[in-house]
């Protein structure tokens, strides 16, 4: 199995405070990997380092074997990293279709000006097709022309996923997708994720607090706490490990 | 959804609608008046009658005009600004919106009004009274106001020296006679219906008058200062420098410090510049700056122990407040005038009338007022010479036939057959007046004191003379 995404010894400091300490992890092609740990462990920080939002002074980030540590965010995105956000990030004043179209176009640079003049800025047929496919995949068909302000939180999260799919990513970073969703919505989300991952075959690195979602969706997991990688392995094993208990529940002994 | 406040948007919509409609209706309204009236409508044949007018006209330029009545009344149709009772003249200049703070509009209006009052009291011209309409171009709207004047057809001529005369070109193109000042020389060059007090001036040309005050003060090392941002200022510096380069040597005078790059407003002060002048041994300073900047320089000179160095001051003539408030700083400074100073003997010139009229009106008698009086006089003489069936073209032709007009003894003799074109640095003679004259006063104890002979206050040079000589004291008063 080839390694799609890898971080090698990534450390991150904020004004002397250490947020990540020599974190090394790997995600292989088509794999679903979990990244768990208590709040403040540094999971989102690691995502930001992988994507390039935060600069990395120590360590490397590799994508498909290529060192991308010094590339800007949009280059990394074009090379195959997708990401969703813990606090949902949608484009205001746009419709669902607009989101998908712009993600599509951003990754396939062409003589945009000429095309724009010919189509007067409206989406082109192949864009319509691709976005329709993705919408169907995520169960959002029928919402194509809705302004995103009208979507529910769950729909919005699915739209974020749909948006990344339009860029044909090799690996998708999912940042707490179930945050703010109730049990029913989370279950539906889990189901959808499994389907589309099976269909499109991208790798997933999932940050989550919902234990059920992590257990059902991921095969392998990493445990992060205070910026340190405590343990890793098959997800059930990590869940049952003493490090896991210590990280989430503490080590105090109750007499 | 939070409620959107409604008030302002409705108001704006209403305003927008009203604006659009007002625009349409105003446009409809104006078109009736102005549409076909082109300023030079008088269909009289210029050919034959022009000769007669011209012959009489040339004399009128230099004649002493008596008490009146002036001209004859005849009915005229279709001449803009002319009715059976009145001739309307526009003053187009800049009022309070003037960033430099000079008194332009008001002072120019005062000068013209004084002249009009004088002539009107004598019966007016061609049986009509001269009426002045004051139009403020508010600094930015000169071209628009000019367009209104052209369209309106209610003004015969335009007098004025605004800060930016962008509309003057349109006015002259439309055949309106325009009377401006030396500031508009660039615009007036070669334009046969635009007049300035002493003929079109060449700012970049060397001028003999610049040598005189330096010699008078006994100085030998001259500093010249101008702004970098204003082309007029740079041209002025160039002209001054050329004067000393050409004629300074034999007089033992040299321009040792030339700076035409001062930043406008002098935000950083002039400390280093004055220090540099001190090091160069400057003992006289020529300025191409405004009054306020000169004050700053004087203060810095005083600070660096150069308070005795004389300057030539811009435009400050007649500004009593400026002179008295800054008496110490300005002590020993010179002011140059292209007209006869008030401090000279006024008999035999129109200065007497000028002083009388302006004092009666309570107006300040300063540089702009006097220049505007001269403008008004030029127009008047043109009207007189053009005869009772006058129009704009005839007046222009008349003035252009004057070969030696002095505006009532106020200036040296101007030859309008040649002096619409300015002299050039290569040819200082062809378009020069017969005598190039200038007057100087000096500030002493906060007052202007005449330099030279009170009866012959003009210092005159012969333009054809290659070398600089002591000027000939001259008077242009009537004998």
């Amino acid at each position, binding site marked *: 199995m080839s390694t799609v995404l890898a971080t090698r010894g990534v450390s991150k400091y904020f004004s002397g405070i250490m947020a990540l300490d020599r974190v090394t992890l790997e995600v292989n092609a088509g794999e679903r990997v979990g990244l768990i740990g208590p709040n403040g462990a540094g999971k989102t920080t690691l995502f930001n380092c992988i994507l390039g*939002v935060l600069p990395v002074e120590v360590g490397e980030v590799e994508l498909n074997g290529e060192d991308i540590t010094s590339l800007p965010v949009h280059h990394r995105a074009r090379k195959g990293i997708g990401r969703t*956000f813990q606090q949902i990030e949608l*484009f205001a004043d746009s419709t669902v279709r607009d989101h998908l179209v712009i*993600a599509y176009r951003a990754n396939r640079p062409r003589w945009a000006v000429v095309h724009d003049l010919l189509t007067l800025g409206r989406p082109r047929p192949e864009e319509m097709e691709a976005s329709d496919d993705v919408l169907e995949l995520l169960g959002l068909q029928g919402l194509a022309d809705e302004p995103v302000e009208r979507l529910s939180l769950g729909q919005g999260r699915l739209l974020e996923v749909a*948006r990344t799919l339009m860029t044909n990513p090799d690996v998708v970073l999912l940042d707490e997708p179930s945050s703010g969703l109730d049990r029913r919505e989370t279950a539906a989300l889990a189901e959808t994720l499994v389907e589309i991952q099976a269909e499109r075959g991208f790798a997933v690195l999932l940050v989550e607090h919902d234990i059920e979602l992590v257990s059902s969706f991921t095969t392998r997991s990493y445990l992060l706490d205070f910026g340190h990688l405590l343990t890793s392995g098959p997800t059930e094993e990590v869940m049952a490990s003493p490090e896991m208990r210590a990280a989430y529940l503490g080590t105090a002994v109750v007499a | 959804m939070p409620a959107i406040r409604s008030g302002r948007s409705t108001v704006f919509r209403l305003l927008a609608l009203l604006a659009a409609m007002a625009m349409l209706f105003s446009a409809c309204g104006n078109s009736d008046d102005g549409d076909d009236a082109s300023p030079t409508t008088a269909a009289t044949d210029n050919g034959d009658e022009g000769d007669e007018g011209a012959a009489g006209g040339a004399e009128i330029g230099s004649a002493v005009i008596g008490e009146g009545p002036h001209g004859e009344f005849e009915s005229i149709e279709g001449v803009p600004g002319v009715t059976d009772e009145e001739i309307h003249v526009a003053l187009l200049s800049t009022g309070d919106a003037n960033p430099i703070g000079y008194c332009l509009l008001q002072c120019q209006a005062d000068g013209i009004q004084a002249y009009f009052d004088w002539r009107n009291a004598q019966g007016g011209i061609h049986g009509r009274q001269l009426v002045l309409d004051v139009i403020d171009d508010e600094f930015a709207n000169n071209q628009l106001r000019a367009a209104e004047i052209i369209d309106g057809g209610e003004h015969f001529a335009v007098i004025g020296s605004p800060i930016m005369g962008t509309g003057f070109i349109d006015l002259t193109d439309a055949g309106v006679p325009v009377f401006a000042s030396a500031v508009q020389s660039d615009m007036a060059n070669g334009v046969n219906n635009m007049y300035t007090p002493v003929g079109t001036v060449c700012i970049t040309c060397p001028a003999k008058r610049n040598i005189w005050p330096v010699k008078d003060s006994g100085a030998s090392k001259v500093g010249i200062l101008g702004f970098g941002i204003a082309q007029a200022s740079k041209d002025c510096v160039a002209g001054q420098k050329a004067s000393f380069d050409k004629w300074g040597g034999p007089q033992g005078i040299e321009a040792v410090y030339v700076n035409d790059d001062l930043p406008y407003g002098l935000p950083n002060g002039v400390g*280093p510049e004055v220090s*540099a002048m001190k090091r160069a041994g400057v003992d006289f300073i020529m300025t191409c700056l405004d009054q306020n900047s000169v004050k700053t320089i004087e203060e810095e000179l005083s600070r660096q122990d150069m308070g005795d160095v004389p300057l030539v001051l811009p435009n*400050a003539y007649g500004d009593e407040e400026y002179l008295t408030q800054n008496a110490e700083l300005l002590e020993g400074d010179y002011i140059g005038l292209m007209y006869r100073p008030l401090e000279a003997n006024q008999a035999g010139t129109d200065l007497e009338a000028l002083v009388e009229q302006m004092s009666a009106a309570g107006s300040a008698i300063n540089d702009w007022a006097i220049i505007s009086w001269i403008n008004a006089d030029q127009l008047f003489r043109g009207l007189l010479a053009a005869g009772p069936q006058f129009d704009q073209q005839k007046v222009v032709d008349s003035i252009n036939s004057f070969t030696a007009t002095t505006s009532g003894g106020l200036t040296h003799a101007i030859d309008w057959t040649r002096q619409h074109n300015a002299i050039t640095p290569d040819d200082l003679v062809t378009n020069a007046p017969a005598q190039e004259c200038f007057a100087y006063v000096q500030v002493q104890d906060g007052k202007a004191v005449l330099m030279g002979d009170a009866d012959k206050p003009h210092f005159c040079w012969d333009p054809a003379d290659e070398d600089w000589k002591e000027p000939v004291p001259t008077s242009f008063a009537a004998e």
Partner: protein
Amino acid sequence: MILAVSVVTDFFQAVLQGVPPGTVYALVAIGFVLTYKTSGVFNFAFGAQAFASMVLFHKAADEWGWGTVPAAILSVLIFAPLLGFLLEWAVFRHLRTAPPLSTLVVSLGLTVAIPSLVTILLDFSPKSGSSPHGVVPDGRTVRYDPFGVYPFSRDELVATIVAIVAVLGLAALFRFTPVGLMMKAVVESPRMTELNGISADRVSAGAWALSSFFAGLAGVLIAPRFTTFSANEYFNIMVIAIAAAAVGKLVSLPWAFGGGLGLGVVIALVSTFLPRWTDEFAWLKPVQENVLPSIPFVVLFGVIVFVPGLRKAIGSSDPLAGVDPPRQNVASVITSAGWMFLALKAVLLLGAVAVVYTQADRTWTLLVTQAVAMGIIFLSITIITGLAGQISLCQGAFAAIGAFAVYQLGEVRGMSVLVAVVIGGAIAAAVAAALSLTLRQLTGIWVAIATLAFAFFFDAVLVKQSWIGGDSLARSRIPRPVIGTIDFQDDSNFLLLAVIVLAVCALGVYLFSRGTTGRKLRALGGSEIAARSVGISPSRARVAAFALSGFLAAVGGGMLVIGQGSVNYGTSFVPFLALFWLIVVVTFGVRQPSGAIVAAAFFILFESVFLKGEIFGWILRGEDNIPSFFPLAPDWRYILFGLGTIQYARHPEGVLAMSAAKRRARSERRAADKVVVDSAAELGTPA
């Protein structure tokens, strides 16, 4: 040996000569930093506040005969803090959660409005020859020479001492007292401060009073350095002060002080020594001519671009910001509901044009042509600010590039003027693109400041170059184009041509907005991080927007000067005016092309139609019936539009979109009501 000593003395003397102007810069810089630290607002209007106190001081001292000390107390200790209270209560308190760019626009509006308001209310008109004086008696004439090298006047010494005391005192205030900490806390998170039992409103009011007091103090102290009482001087000095403040990354008072003093000294040193080197090395002459006036702006630009850590976004990262309800978003592309309305607008516009073409006389034709040209310029603002979300304060410079290109190529070189317009547009586009590339790492406010620095640089250095501004603009007569047999010398014909150009540009803006780059820009505006995460390159999109914006501004500038027949840089394109353009466009709606066009109409016609009272003459049927308080001073234009920016901060979509949104909300409500009524009818129950 003697030479060496004299150079050292000269050096020392130059340093001393730089202190008085440096103190001025330092005072304003300190005040500016103080405002920023205590209120979080990038207060451009600091200079205007200083001007207001200065005017009151002179009015009281000179005209009302109060004497300097009572006048100083009135203007600095009473009026200035009161003004601060008023600004905080009426304006800035409501902008705490507004994005920093909105607050910048509001402060720009106040910069424009306050001087005009003060001038009118106090009936103030500057007089040539009488210069501002200071607070101490004989301030200008009594001098002290502590080093025996260069004497300082009393005014200057007082100012320097006050600056030193201020910087030390304020630094101590922030370091050692809870007051400073409280103010900073309120800036960062008003809600959290309140949760800790401190009234954010009270602290905020106090902060504004303090910084406004300092503005008044600075205003009165620096007045003697200026040769005139012009509000312009106080505006120009803001740019230099920002350069000094930027040295301290906007938050360090000692660095602001040092930066200001340093600037003054550096300028004095360069003024002293560069001419000497030019005497020896003649090739330095162009450097000398251009370096001196450009030093503050080059410093500012350099600091912004090269100092790291300045790129950190200005604006609060308030953890409790999410508590506010989300701001209402109004669609920036008018959807199908507006079809009929759009058509109606087009018909109205064409109708107006037709009437003007056939009926208007020269004056109105000229005016409307100017409005059309300004419309093209304003479209550039729609692109760069409305679409790309950047505040560019150098649109005047771009427009001037177009104007000068037409003059140089069209008149001086005899090229076809329309071709010259296009070339001018291309040049401006290139300049804009280069500028944008240089600034691509910067966030909103710094882009604004950098563009302002560029505008001033253009104004101070580039305009006077003979290959740009030319040597004799006075007699210039820019020819009108000739296409085939149509001669556009006829003003009405040229108006039509201008309208066609405007229509093409508006269409271009519309297409650009709906096209790929437009979509990318909107995505970046919606969520920059998400946009980047799908592969959108922010710098490329913004460079494209800047380039188009430069092109449009230049085309508008070119058309403007062809219409007028000459280039009038001083009344058409100076930096202050470009500021005002932004404000007018923002008031009417910066996100749609129609906003720009309406704004241009208002900008040009406002004076003639409203300020002159002509509209009342029409309503009341007769010019004689115009109420006597007309014509209003042109200042009112600045006041009304300047204050209008306050409206902008609450409704960034602008007036036009606001009414469009209300219309849609109304129709939706009607539809909803209809549903209720229908279903009630069906169910047989009352609605």
